[in-house]
């Protein structure tokens, strides 16, 4: 995370004060991650560019709704990007299409989207067991609920819940 700003507070204060340099700084620091997250969801570069723009408009408009006591700015930004992207695919009825697509296509895409400048991060995704990765991807990137994952993977709901926990635990072990 070496390219992330250390002084989030200052950035948040100037964003809330509607200072344009704040949005420009946010773009510089965070847009590659936000773009990556969006691309993972919408799958096409063109749509991802549109969604990123919508996400930035939302960030600008709802800056005053960001509550630092509920979580970091980074998390908030990722959530806006994820939700905007998920809304996009749902509104266009892309969801159904995506769900029936084979996971092979999905997996192949992954290997292309790594930014190899960040040594160690590529390994995170490669080290994760495929089962666990699929569960995290469905919930984190595609906005599935526990119930929807249970249906899709034909697993009992309880199993899905514990698998989510195990997957994130594995992720934590890899990054520490």
């Amino acid at each position: 995370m070496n390219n992330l700003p250390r002084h989030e507070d200052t950035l948040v204060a100037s964003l809330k004060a509607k200072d344009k340099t704040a949005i420009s700084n946010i773009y510089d620091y965070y847009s590659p991650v936000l773009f990556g997250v969006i691309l993972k969801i919408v799958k096409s570069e063109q749509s991802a560019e549109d969604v990123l723009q919508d996400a930035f408009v939302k960030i600008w408009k709802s800056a005053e709704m960001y509550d630092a006591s509920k979580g970091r700015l980074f998390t908030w930004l990722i959530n806006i990007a994820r939700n905007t992207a998920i809304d996009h695919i749902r509104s266009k009825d892309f969801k159904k299409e995506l769900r029936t697509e084979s996971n092979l296509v999905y997996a192949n895409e992954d290997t292309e989207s790594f930014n190899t400048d960040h040594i160690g991060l590529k390994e995170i995704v490669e080290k994760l067991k495929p089962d666990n990765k699929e569960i995290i991807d469905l919930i984190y990137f595609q906005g599935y609920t526990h119930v929807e994952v249970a249906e899709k993977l034909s697993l009992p709901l309880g199993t899905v819940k514990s698998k989510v926990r195990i997957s994130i635990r594995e992720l934590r072990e890899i990054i520490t």
Partner: protein
Amino acid sequence: MDIEKYIASGIIESYVLGIASSDEAQEVEALAAKHPEIKKEIASVRDALESYALAHQKTLPAHLKKKILNEIDKLDSGKENNRAKVIEMDTRREIGSGSSRWLAAASIALLVLSGTMNLLQFNKLNDANQKIAALESEKSVLANEFNTLKANYTQQENDLAILSNPLNKTIIMKGVEKQPDALASIYWNAETKEVFLAVNNLPKPPADKQYQLWAIVNGKPVDMGVFDVIDSLQRMSEVEAPQAFAVTLEKKGGSAAPTLEQMYLLGNI
């Protein structure tokens, strides 16, 4: 409350992933304020997911930044124009004389009025936008709650199908000396060999122990798997021609042979 158990339930993960219900989220936030362990767990789950997001970062086309910043500029220009117009009229006040003074005054008044109206409209629009955002988040909370209810309903429906299947034979297991009021039921299907277990009354086992079900076949105990004390039916291993079922308390994960002095339940066929 048992913090370790709470953390182990997976609720923190749901909360950070944004798929917890609003009640759950409020509970997590309230508990995080009281218990540093929960706060730490939230931070750690969040870090893991942030790293996961970072691992997917991608370089963007260079022209995009300018386009997006322009778009944001456009959004704001409406608001700034209002202000600019009012100031402009202030300087023009010096120029007019005679009846044109009246006209100037009237037009200033009109412009100020229209500027105020614009501002009011703008605020109204902002309010409406915020209300929409609030409704949207409320909608997703309701959708989550609906999904949880749907899952519970499906579970109950499945349980009911097993309970009402006439091919299932019900075997009541009653408490032995150790726990006379203990009670559990077995639903055994002689055709498919399937076995389902309902826990009616059993004390919660200590954290390092688990209950284990045994079938007695040809006078010998056969391992049928361990189970937890939960409300819904649990599928156990299949068995052919059991003579009896019994439950013992064993180490977590189960034992190869039953510990007879830890027998809790017994039911003959």
